[in-house]
């Protein structure tokens, strides 16, 4: 990726993100990998874009999601799609494996970090290749870590306990989905930049499946909350 600003010498450095996406949670389960993310892009503290798809399929057996600057996310999706299209150019039917994408993204992020102009993202690449599950995190510095579960953003603080208690790497798809839904419930309550509409996507032997967005169940009709019994009106 070469930007015009780099060529003309007016280098700008991304110091803070503008439009940001929330946490991403990804887990392996028995037979595949599942990724969950909410559908909100915030403009600072404003919940600006509430119906955004932040999990994308980049090849037949790979999905990509990230939290952080949304424009960087869109650019990375384009870059990864370019690699997949190279199979067309060479006419050889060889498609990159999920690990190839993960490593490529790690190299790209590291290069941008070395120029002090990072891709302001925590990236998650998930895939299923050769009967093996693949899940990796690439962070803003270009660190590459393969793992059984990945959390980005606030989920790293709030959700690890839930995952630790209710998930194991051989659970079923339904169990994994429930864990993710529970995590996003907690995030909606505690993370100011979270949303209660989430989207789940999973990859297994049959390929990638990106589900329709769904609303997590949250309860706000507590009597005390409705009647505001404990609030005092201050009249002066």
């Amino acid at each position, binding site marked *: 990726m070469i930007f015009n600003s780099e060529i003309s010498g007016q280098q700008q450095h991304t110091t803070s993100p503008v439009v940001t996406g929330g946490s991403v949670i990804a887990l392996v389960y028995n037979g595949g990998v599942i990724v969950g993310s909410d559908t909100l892009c915030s403009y600072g503290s404003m919940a600006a874009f509430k119906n955004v798809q932040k999990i994308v399929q980049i090849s037949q057996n790979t999905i990509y999601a990230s939290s952080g600057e949304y424009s960087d996310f869109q650019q990375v999706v384009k870059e990864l799609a370019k690699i997949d299209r190279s199979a067309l150019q*060479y006419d050889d039917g060889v498609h990159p494996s999920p*690990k190839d994408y993960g*490593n490529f993204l790690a190299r790209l992020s590291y290069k941008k970090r070395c120029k002090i102009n990072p891709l302001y993202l925590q990236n998650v690449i998930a895939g299923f290749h050769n009967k093996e599950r693949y899940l990796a995190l690439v962070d803003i510095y270009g660190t590459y870590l393969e793992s059984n579960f990945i959390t980005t953003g606030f989920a790293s603080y709030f959700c690890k306990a839930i995952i630790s208690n209710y998930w194991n790497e051989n659970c079923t798809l339904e169990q994994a989905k429930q864990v993710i839904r529970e995590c996003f419930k907690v995030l909606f309550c505690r993370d100011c930049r979270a949303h209660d509409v989430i989207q789940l996507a999973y990859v297994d032997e049959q390929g990638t499946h990106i589900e329709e967005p769904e609303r997590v169940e949250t309860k706000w009709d507590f009597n005390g909350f409705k009647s505001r019994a404990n609030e005092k009106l201050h009249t002066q």
Partner: protein
Amino acid sequence: MLKHLYDTDCVTWSPQGKLFQVEYAMEAVKQGSICLGLKSNENVVLCSLKRQPSELAGYQEKQFKIDDHMAIAIAGLTADARVLCKYMRTECLEYKYTYESHHPVGRLVFKVAEKSQHKTQSGAKRPYGVGLLVAGIDPNGVHLFETCPSGNYYEYKCQAIGSRSQAARTYFESWFHLFEKSTLEQLILHGLSAIKKAIMEDEELNEKNVEVGILGKNLKFTHLNAQELKDYIAKLETFSPNSQIQQE
């Protein structure tokens, strides 16, 4: 045909539609000593005959490892071969650095072919005077490619290039139907038998002048050492392709 009118450079066509400089470059390949390759479902074997410029000199190496999963055998100008070898090694390294996986074989051959073609379309350049046999394994399977100075490349089940390679190709034509299911040992013996057809009457195969490289799905590229070569050459005495048919 007044060849000399049309053969000065690459940018001149002959009236018959030939680029003579490219054709002459292919002749250089035919002057090199023989090298051949053959593949089965699991392995690829490269065999070559090494030349010794004089009694005092060593034997010229003909096979080069490009990466764990890929190797080439060359026929023609060794200096040109070294350039292409370096290019292929660099490409494999960069691919590994970026993707942590092996460069798909067909793609690298395509890149080499592109590079070669470039040299055939310029007034100031000459084509590479070397033909490569590229053996490699990737997720698409087991491969053997040949590249030409013209920029063409072909995939083969087995192929021989260099001087007196027709004799080896004739051997292949008779027996290539056995190669797919051959074991590694049978493949090596076939390769050595084919090379034996191509040597001169007063020459003989020995562990000094023959080079055998092997590659397999779980086998990184290796050369057979002197002792192994001696053993295989000895086995040639009793090897016959007919016995392989009887086994099947």
